[in-house]
């Protein structure tokens, strides 16, 4: 690989006619400038102009964006919504926890008004959810689990053992064999043992 | 202290490791992390020291000022401590967030250091009952990764060793009013005898064993810890139990013995290092944070 060029914030990389600005760059007066300190990467994406971006060794902090699948931990529930702490965005762990809310009507796709949060989540559960909104002044990130692949992934029973999912709405404790209600995420077929 | 979240599985892993005398970074239960000490880093002060113990960074500055001695002990000077938990360590310390921890740390430091057995307070006296030297010891916490007390105490010892107090001449004029003159020569100064200054050793109880120099993760697995201040002779000057859990007397005795051993072993290499640094004199390259 040819040695990559170093760049620092504010350095002019090229003009808008040569490339499309990518990550780590910004436009000003018809030229593309770097906004990070790192290496310049030019990637050819087919017939269009190459995308120019700046890469760093260490990834900067990622923020949850609309449409991203996030892994979160339930902190408290009440009849109208469940409050969660967002721990991972995709597969990148976050350094600092972000707060999110899963409203009652966003738990399931069907029979939204018959949902009881107590029977869908419990504090301490690990949940896969999708971000639907960044929220406004009062609220936190709004999340939804209204898809088959979203919902509770790991939950502990009242006896303290990790439960096994048996259907989309029930999980069973291996120790006491008691069944508890949760909105369970469907396991991807590639993770099931044949 | 800035807390770190540790999951159940991690806790079990750490406790099993400690049981077999193997910690997360490969150390034994009574080993310290890599320590770097440098004195005379800040030139505005009369003495300063910087220590980094793993990821814990502490900067201590000592300033000597003339003040009035306390009424009960008119022929002794005294030390004043101030611990500043800066926001650099963690954003929770912004504004007044770090005050609570700072007050707790400085109260413990008063108990350990501000007595005549640790520091020769009589040498700080200028005029009994009227003037004495007050040493303001300011501790600045820059990075926090567990084991703050140990790092602070070693830094204080190094800073006190490095402190140069200007010599004072007292002259009396005809009316009997005493005049204090500080000598202008920067090399004409008094040094403190830090032989008896103790070092604090914190032992955390993890499972059934205790560990020295716990990181934040190990601290999250322990329920109680014991703080012992030990002099170079192995004498224990102050013992304090911290934390919410309870310890049974046997383990306290065990931990005290271990603390004495570890603490005694700290002093000799420290003094050797400080003497060596001092002997380099002007030729020494000051590194500070640039290295």
């Amino acid at each position, binding site marked *: 690989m040819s040695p990559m060029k170093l760049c620092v914030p504010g350095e002019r990389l090229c003009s808008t006619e040569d490339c499309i600005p990518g990550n780590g760059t910004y436009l000003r007066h018809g030229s593309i400038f770097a906004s990070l300190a790192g290496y310049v990467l030019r990637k050819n994406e087919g017939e269009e102009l190459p995308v120019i971006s700046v890469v760093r060794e260490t990834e900067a902090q990622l*923020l949850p964006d609309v449409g991203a699948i996030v892994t979160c931990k339930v902190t408290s529930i009440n009849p109208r919504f469940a409050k969660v702490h967002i721990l991972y965005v995709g597969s990148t762990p976050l350094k600092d926890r972000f707060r999110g809310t899963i409203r009652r009507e966003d738990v399931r796709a069907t029979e939204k008004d018959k949902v009881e949060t107590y029977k869908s989540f419990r504090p301490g559960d690990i949940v896969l959810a999708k971000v639907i909104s960044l929220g406004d002044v009062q609220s936190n990130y709004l999340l939804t689990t209204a898809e088959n692949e979203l919902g509770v992934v790991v939950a502990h029973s009242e006896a303290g053992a990790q439960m096994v999912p048996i259907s989309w709405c029930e999980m069973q404790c291996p120790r006491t064999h008691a069944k508890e209600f949760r909105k369970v995420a469907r396991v991807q077929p590639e993770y099931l043992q044949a | 202290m800035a807390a770190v979240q540790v999951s159940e599985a991690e806790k079990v892993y750490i406790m099993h490791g400690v049981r077999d005398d193997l910690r997360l970074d490969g150390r034994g239960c009574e080993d310290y992390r890599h320590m770097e000490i440098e004195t005379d880093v800040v030139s505005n002060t009369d003495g*300063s020291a910087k220590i980094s113990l793993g990821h814990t960074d502490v*900067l201590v500055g000592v300033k000597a000022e003339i003040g009035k001695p306390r009424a009960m002990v008119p022929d002794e000077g005294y030390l004043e401590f101030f611990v*500043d938990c800066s926001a650099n*360590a963690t954003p929770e310390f912004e504004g007044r967030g770090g005050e609570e921890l700072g007050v707790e740390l400085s109260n413990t430091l008063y108990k350990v250091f501000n007595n005549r057995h640790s520091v020769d307070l009589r040498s700080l006296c200028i005029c009994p009952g009227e003037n004495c030297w007050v040493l303001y010891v300011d501790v600045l916490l820059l990075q926090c990764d567990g084991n703050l007390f140990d790092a602070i105490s070693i830094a204080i010892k190094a800073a006190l060793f490095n402190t140069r107090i200007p010599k004072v001449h007292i002259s009396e004029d005809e009316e009997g009013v005493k005049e204090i003159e500080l000598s202008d020569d920067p090399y004409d100064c008094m040094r403190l005898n830090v032989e008896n200054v103790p070092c604090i050793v914190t032992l955390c109880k993890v499972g059934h064993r205790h560990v020295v120099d716990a990181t934040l993760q190990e601290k999250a697995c322990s329920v109680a810890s014991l703080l012992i201040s030990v002099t170079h002779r192995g004498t224990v000057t102050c013992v304090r139990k911290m934390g919410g859990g309870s310890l049974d007397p046997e383990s306290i005795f065990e931990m005290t013995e271990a603390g004495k051993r570890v603490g005694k072993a700290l002093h000799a290499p420290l003094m050797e290092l400080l003497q060596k640094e001092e002997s380099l004199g002007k030729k020494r390259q000051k590194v500070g944070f640039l290295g």
Partner: protein
Amino acid sequence: MAGLELLSDQGYRLDGRKATELRKVQARTSVFAQADGSAYLEQGNTKALAVVYGPHETRGSRSKSLHDRAVINCQFSMATFSTAERKRRPHGDRKSSEMSLHLKQTFEAAVLTELYPRSQIDIYVKILQADGGNYSACVNAATLALVDAGIPMRDYVCACTAGFVEDTPLADLCHAEESGGGTSLALALLPRSGNIALLQMDARLHQDHLDALIEAAMTACKGLSKVLDDVVRQHLEEVSVLTRD
């Protein structure tokens, strides 16, 4: 201070520098491993330490967050042993709050905050030793820390002070020159575009001299930006050598 001239007849200042000469600048980034970005900078005898955390969720009340931009939160504090006379309170006094506000204003002009809506970027600066040019050292150290943290910025922000004595502009004032009672101008500049992020001047000055003073400060800032640039490039090369196969 009778008899001490700020500028001698031969053109030398109190510490032996010429009128437009800057003090020696040494800096290092990534000083602390636990913070997102950190830097240490020495400008003569002034030592500043800057630490950056973020971007992360808005701490405290959620109402402080902005819907389309990140909030920049700065805190300026001085170590109690940094000045010749011991300072009782490291932060919280009026001067520190004013400096924190200036820093916030400076960096809002440079950081691309539109990329991080509803989040907060914390910049904490600490002065370990104060010998004039506190604000400039803070800004320079904070710039390095932001670059180290990987937060996108339009350009470097370089700051410098300038003064005016007997029709000659002086660049990079030390403590004695600042407190001498003459003019003192603090300027924060984005070097490549030439835009000024912050301009502050105390004391009286004839308006004919203002241009010359600002020119002197801008030249000093451009010189400083070269030094900061070198430090960043050197650090990048060091890191890449370590991570390359």
